[in-house]
């Protein structure tokens, strides 16, 4: 009896061990395949905003363009990038090298490049337009390149730079956006299912105050300085005459130049960019709203556009092309060009008939007053002579 039990026990144990090995194998297989699809996003978007105007804020435009350059290099196409630059530095008349924006001293790296598409420029960069882009509440005639057409499987990178303070970011020296408004906009995006995960980077003075009020899930935020600290600029170029970049974005650019689309660096490396020794300010980050562990989030999940490709062997049938029959009619009409300055015709042009408009309120009121005074003065018996 005990021998039987022992045998069945050993059988059971063997079965259990085999099951365990099988499960381990399955899990391992699941992990490698699962890792491929672990982030859960299918497309990437980027919204890059520079909020400062005037030539001495050259560095903010250079900041935004260097992030644009990295994001394009890592694979996000122009149609998925909304780039907002509040002023034009490249073709500014003070720029000694037109059509260029440099990030490094001695003009080493032109971040403006030859293939750039700016979606919102100049006076179009306002708080209202920024919030409309984020929430998607744009007028119907807005072109596609100016819209953020993200869905619930999109990872969005939002980068803001400019002058800021405790709880606000200044737009174009005339208005500001507060951290409460920004948090509410992100909550609107969450409720409309406009993002899967969101990475928010801000490079301004006291930048950490901007992400204090976030309350929507799946947001990770980085800032270049804590509350009470200023973000400093990196280096001036004596030929151009202004500071070229801000410190935090300069070291961020250096870090991103080492990333390629297949790289496996994760967010913990990004948090280490620009320590206090280099940046003078203390960069901060916030990950409590983010569901995944930052160590498992790849940089290319936000900065790159890694497409998942599914290969199929099915045959696809194409429809027949639409064939238009040849028109048999032969036009006998002869066309001609128009005289560009027909002097006699212009001189004898009849004046345009103005459309008749009914009299507006002022005229009606005036005539009513006149009639009332008339009939008050002279009595109502004159009324029958009028009507």
């Amino acid at each position, binding site marked *: 009896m005990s021998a039987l039990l022992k045998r069945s026990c050993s059988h059971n144990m063997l079965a259990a061990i085999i099951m365990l090995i099988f499960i381990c194998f399955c899990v391992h297989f699941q992990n490698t395949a699962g890792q491929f699809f672990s982030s859960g996003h299918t497309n990437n978007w980027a919204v890059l905003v520079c909020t400062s105007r005037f030539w001495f804020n050259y560095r903010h435009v250079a900041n935004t363009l260097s992030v644009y350059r990295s994001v394009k290099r890592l694979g996000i196409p122009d149609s998925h990038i909304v780039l907002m630059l509040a002023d*034009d530095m*490249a073709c500014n008349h003070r720029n000694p090298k*037109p*059509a260029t924006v440099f990030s490094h001293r001695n003009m080493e790296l032109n971040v403006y490049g*030859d293939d750039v598409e700016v979606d919102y*420029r100049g006076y179009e960069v306002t708080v209202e337009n920024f919030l409309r882009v984020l929430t998607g509440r744009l007028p119907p005639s807005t072109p596609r*390149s100016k819209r953020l057409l993200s869905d619930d499987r999109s990872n969005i990178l939002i980068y803001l730079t400019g002058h800021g303070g405790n709880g606000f970011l200044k737009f174009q020296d005339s208005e500001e956006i507060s951290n409460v408004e920004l948090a509410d906009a992100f909550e609107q995006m969450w409720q409309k299912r406009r993002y899967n995960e969101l990475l928010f980077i801000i490079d301004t003075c006291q930048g950490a105050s901007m992400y204090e009020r976030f309350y929507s899930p799946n947001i990770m935020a980085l800032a270049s300085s804590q509350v009470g600290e200023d973000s400093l600029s990196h280096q001036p170029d004596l030929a151009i005459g202004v500071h070229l970049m801000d410190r935090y974005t300069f070291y961020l650019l250096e870090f991103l130049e080492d990333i390629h689309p297949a790289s496996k660096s994760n967010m913990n490396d990004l948090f280490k960019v620009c320590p206090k020794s280099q940046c003078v300010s203390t960069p901060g980050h916030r990950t409590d709203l983010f569901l995944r562990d930052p160590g498992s989030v790849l940089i290319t999940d936000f900065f790159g556009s890694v497409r998942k490709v599914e290969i199929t062997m099915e045959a696809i049938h194409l429809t027949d092309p639409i064939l238009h029959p040849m028109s048999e009619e032969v036009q006998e009409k002869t066309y001609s060009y128009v005289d*560009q300055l027909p*002097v006699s015709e212009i001189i004898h042009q009849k004046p*345009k008939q103005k459309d008749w408009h009914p009299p507006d309120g002022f005229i009606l009121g005036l005539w009513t007053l006149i009639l009332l005074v008339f009939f008050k003065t002279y009595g109502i018996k004159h009324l029958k002579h009028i009507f």
Partner: protein
Amino acid sequence: YILYILIYIPIFVFVLLRKLIKEEGENDFQEELVIRPLHSGDIYASFQFRTLWETDFMRENKVSHYRLFPKSLGQVISKFSVRELHISFTQGYWRTMQWGQPFLPSPPGAELWVWFQDSVTDVDAAWKELTNVLSGIFCASLNFIDSTNTVQPSASFKPLGIVNETDHRFLRYATLPREIVCTENLTPWKKLLPCGSKAGLAVLLKSEKLFHSSFFSQTVHIRPVCQDRECKTTSWELRQTLNVVFDLHTSGQGKREWSLFKMFSRTLTEACPLASSSKIYIDVTDNPQEEYFELSPATPLLSQAVVLGDRRTFSVYDLTQQVTFGTVRSLNLLIRWKSTEGDMLRPLLHAERYVAGYGLQTGEIHTVMYNNHPFRSFPVLLLDSVPWYLRLYIHTLTVTSKGKDNTPSYIHYQPSKDRMRPHLLEMLVQLPPHSVTEVTVQFERALLKWTEYTPDPNHGFYVGSSVISALVPSSVAMDTNITQEQPLFSSFFPCKEESSYFVRVYTEPLLVNLPTPDFSMPYNVICLTCTVVAVGYGSLYNLLTRSFQIEEPNPRLAKKIANFIRRIRGVPLLS
């Protein structure tokens, strides 16, 4: 060989079917570069790219197959029922007195004028949507075009293409003088070309050199044109032109020697394979015996064309021939000056505009037009579109030529409506020979609401250029038939009579300062008021309501201990 039959019969049937079924029409693409050395040492280069397509955008079956014609523009034409579209982006001002007349004029900033088809019912709504769509295509802020800067000219801007009748209700014109042109506008413009910027003449279009110039202009013109001399059929023409003037000192480093490499930092290696003709024209009219400048590599091809009322001779380089590129497989034209003499052909029509007056309340706009022809007078049509915040007083309008009053034979004035539409003034003035005509009108500056100011209001506010359209007498007989053999740059404006040619001149835009409030005033007032209230009223309130009580000072430690012991003893305390 049953296999051969099986293969060849379908091919034969397919070819037959193609011949029977009308294709989408012929596509034709031509590219051209004209280089004209200027007397001041600068050099003027004009690129012209033309795509012709025989199709009908307005029929019910939508056009779906695009070959050379860009799809984005084709969809714009069919969706908004556009008959003609002309858009230009310019940086810099064309100096007529130093450079002569341009082949295709354009005002500083952005300019857009559109003729809609007769079938459009609501032209203003179509115009608004069209500007938004174009702002997305060209990455420009064209969405700022609205009713406050759109006008409907009544006699200027007649259609440049084929038309049955012109009803000016379908024309809209707007300019944005503030608009900046930079690489972000050039990039989508280059993407509209069939070869992109990869082959042909478009290879030379590098932004770092193009924007480091005195004048840069890129335009797109879409219109229906005649296909041949009889003009029984029409086709759609898309013309993209790029005009650039390189300065002797900034791009030329002071040396009077120009080459393609020096101008564009590139040389040419091949023509665009999709182009039916790809040519470079160098203007050598002033240099018949090579006494002023030398052109290398030499070319035997010479061509003559009547352009801007003058017969000019051009050396032609045909890029579709392999022999043009020589043994090095690349073409780098070199123009080297030998002497700096020679005078310039003075332009017959020239205009200037400026603001006179002082202070921030009133001012006067002066438009000055010069007729440099020795004995002929000709009519000009002046179009002025002034924003509503400069209130024009038309009763102060004066037109004087040679000191005497010159009454215009046609005036059309549409007054402005605050915040709704601008002033429109169109006048037909006859310019006497060899004279200066001055048009003056006084205005008053309005005060805007504080939210209507731009973020940088102290820069000033722009007033768009005036447009002067004129029929200038030409010294050479013009060709009234537009054929395919003419070079593109000479066949843009249609010619109806041989003795004069049509020209359009743009004046400078104006920059006026409006009375600007001090935007830091509310902040300052709040601080000052709160300080005064706190200090003044606060002290008064305290004085009136504060009551004083006498308080025992805190006893010293020794006294405290002594009092404590006395309390225990039951003895009266110390004071």
